[in-house]
């Protein structure tokens, strides 16, 4: 039984793959749209059938006509529900990574070239849906959350886009592979020694006194600089955002080393390293990262953190 289901699922996915191949940009057309009555649609038809029987039994032509009108409305709703989805252009856009086990987000742009598309619901498998409507010629951007399971680059599956507009009697939907991926950082695993080399000692939790570093001067703030290094006093005086520059004493560098965590399995190592990247970043310390397949020069700030986390996410073939 289970085997049969697996075979059916595989056949279905293979068929979908051929019918709607992955692409960064998809325009929905009749080949890509599925349509089926909703539960409410069946209920609606049932009521129409009841009125039909009533019309026959009471020999009332107008009652019959009314039931025919309801059925015709249902048939028209097929065209309109289909038409509401037809012509929607979907574009894969931005990505917001997240930690494994939590959620990331992927941006999808919904574009209408010809006519308005109302009340479209979009979601990745296993994630909550978001609603959007686009007018003719408009473009809307949606960030859709993605469940991240493992470390590494993740394919969220097929995007489901669904609509019941206008009458709710039918559901038209499409399953689109936008060739979109989301990066999952390792899950932070607290504890252990700080796996560092360099610096004045190897005690990871060493607290470096900022005062011992040589203050070199100010430069204007660049996005990604650590907020701890912003010269808030000068900002308060109205001189704009500036970042304090310190000289880079050789012994002040910390290298987070993969090799220092021997004895653990690789995923645990990544998780530990992740924890320490976050710790050091929070303290505003300067750190570098050395992994078997690459290294990151020491640095601070948001950008450094992003780089380090991405390296951890994608290292070793992305988990």
């Amino acid at each position, binding site marked *: 039984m289970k085997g049969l289901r697996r075979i059916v699922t595989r056949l279905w996915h293979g068929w979908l793959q051929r019918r709607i191949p992955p692409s960064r940009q998809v325009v929905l057309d009749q080949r890509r749209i599925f349509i089926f009555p909703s539960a409410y649609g069946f209920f609606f038809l049932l*009521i129409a059938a009841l009125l039909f029987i009533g019309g026959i*039994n009471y020999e009332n032509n107008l009652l019959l006509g009314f039931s025919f*009108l309801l059925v015709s*409305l249902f048939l028209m709703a097929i065209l309109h529900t289909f038409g509401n989805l*037809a012509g929607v252009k979907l574009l894969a856009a931005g990505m917001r990574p997240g930690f494994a086990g939590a959620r990331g987000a992927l941006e999808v742009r919904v574009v209408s070239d*010809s006519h308005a598309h109302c009340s479209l619901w979009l979601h990745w498998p296993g994630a909550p849906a978001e609603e959007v409507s686009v*007018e003719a*010629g408009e473009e809307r951007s949606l960030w859709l959350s993605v469940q991240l399971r493992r470390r590494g680059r993740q394919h969220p599956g097929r995007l489901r886009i669904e609509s019941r507009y206008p*009458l709710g009697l039918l559901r038209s939907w499409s399953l689109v592979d936008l060739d979109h991926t989301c990066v999952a950082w390792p899950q932070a695993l607290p504890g252990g020694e700080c796996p560092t080399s360099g610096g004045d000692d190897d005690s990871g939790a060493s607290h470096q006194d900022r005062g011992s570093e040589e203050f070199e001067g100010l430069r204007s703030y660049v996005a990604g600089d650590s907020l701890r290094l912003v010269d808030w006093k000068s900002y308060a005086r109205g001189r704009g955002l500036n970042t304090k520059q310190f000289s880079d004493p050789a012994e002040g560098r910390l290298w987070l080393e993969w090799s220092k965590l021997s004895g653990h399995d690789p995923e645990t190592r990544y998780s530990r390293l992740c924890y320490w990247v976050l710790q050091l970043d929070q303290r505003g310390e300067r750190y570098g990262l050395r992994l078997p397949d690459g290294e990151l020069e020491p640095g601070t700030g948001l950008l450094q953190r992003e780089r380090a986390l991405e390296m951890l996410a994608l290292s070793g073939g992305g988990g």
Partner: protein
Amino acid sequence: MARVYQVPRHAFPWLISGVLLASLPHMIRAELWLSVAVPLLLLWRIMIQRGRVAMPGKLLRGMLLLGLVGATLYSHGTLLGPDAGVTLLVAAFALKMLEMFRLRDAYVVIILACFVLATAFLFSTGPLVTVYIGVVLVLVVAALIGINHPESGVSPWRHLRLSAKMVAQAVPLMLVFFVLVPRLPPLWNLKVEQHQGKTGMSDSMAPGEISRLSRQNDLAFRVEFDGEVPPPSLRYWRGLTYGWFDGRRWSQAVPPALDRQEYIRFPSGVSPQWYLQLLADRGDVAWKYRVVMERTGRQWLYAMSVPFSDKTDVGLARDLRLVRRTDIETTYDYRVASYLIPVAVEGLKEWERKFYVALPSGSNPRASAMAQQWRDESATDADYANRLLRWLNEEEFYYTLEPPLLGQHTVDDFLFRTRRGFCEHYASSFAFLLRAAGIPARIVAGYQGGQLNPLGNHLQVRQYDAHVWVEAWLPEQGWIEFDPTAAVAPARIELGLEQALAGLDEQTETGLAAALRSNPLLTRLSYLMDYIEFGWAKWVLGYNQQGQLEFLSRWLGRVTPERMVMALAAVGGSVMAVMLVWMLWRARRPGLTWWQREYRAMLRLMHKRGLNPPAHLPPSQVIAAAAQRYPRAAMALQDWHSCFEAAVYKPLATEPGLLRRQLVVLRRKVARMSRR
């Protein structure tokens, strides 16, 4: 307390008005409490939507439901049957508005609205009601579209437009279904206890009952003739005969020696001897016509003598009238060929003669004595009957709608004391006098006359045309019609009741109604309305199994179920295909963005004002040129331009709907300010 589902603001007006207007026909028709309860419940719902009051709790809702059920029970005595059922349905439907906790509840309300709308057809089937119901359906569908559009800030008119469009698109398909879906016979016999009483002629008659009917203006039936229309004096529409007299009341009765099988001959049954004889004796076809009858709740049909119908469920009774197997609960449409009355070859059977001369013993002694004396003085039965008619004509008898009350011996009292009566008095006395002289006689009830509608060349027969007359059996002639009313008031037969009474300074209706009726424009309008209603009754209400068969056989040749299904699939499918192609074509067409359309609208405005900027100019220069030409509109033009630029270059910076509305407002301002 569960979280309350909020109906989108843009859907709410359609939902409320849809519910109210769907209930309106029932509120007008049914009990007073319903027309109070429904608006109150809706008002309550509006207050909830506005956040003034909370949704009522379970207990309160339960009590309200009990109250509504109780009120229905109180006014109908039952919860079953269409009448009480619909009342309860409408009440519960309004109550459901207070129970909308989820989207699903809103869906249920809308389905109920469709159902309630449809039930209005059980009670009235006119063309105006149909149009009304179509309009309300558009509102209900607009509400359905609204609740499927959860975003805020959408214009409610947009739902209405789409709804009207969808309903309009559904109509051709509905017509295809209406014409082609096979009409089935009723699946099970629903003995409908109609809310309306039975109307028209009843199966018995006492003095004063026909004159009461004559005050009604309602339509009884319409007749369309193949060929020329008979003159008024021949328009005797026979409905039923009264053969039994109890001294006061004449009633319909089957002679005791006959069973129903022998009394009424249905096409599916065996033909009794008298029917075969009639077929052999009948003369030529005198009139061919189609009758479209309003609902009566009774079985008998109206036709001129001797009627033969085309219907399979209509039989001919021994007293030469048409009877349907079941009661007429909706508009009923039948064709009749009337043959000339045959000359009786055979005499009456002995039991028949006895039945038709029977009188209660000791009633009306004075009239009985006169009848016997006069019959002895006359040579033949016919002479005697004619003497009676002459007497009625020459003596001081008056035709009136308001006859005085009669004592115990109604005939004596009328003939020798009051002498003021309506057709039932004359017919009753005349039949009595015939029977008292030993001549078989019966009373015929039906309608006489009818007004010709020049538009459709058809007759309208109304309740005030109700009439009774007499048939007497004359040897070697058979049943011969006598109309004693004609002897007293010939105008009644030639011109109709109204004219006859006008000559006597009596009126059937109040002065105002009569004045309105005599207005030529209103008369023409009423003819037009009647014409439309007749067409509606013939083509829409009367499109039954037989009509369908006739219509389809013109197109399909032989009508078989397979051919019908194929025709339905072909025609319905092609209608759908046309719509689909149109929609695909529309989806493919590269549309303009809304701001491109807005710019075009602005250019059109310039064009209207006589400004024709060259096509290559950018918007900024077009606007500058316009501002120069119309300094008063310069401000508005500038504002419009900045909004337009924001829309084109910073589409994500503002709410697009807002910008769009703003642009339209500004463009209108420009139009106003640039007007000379």
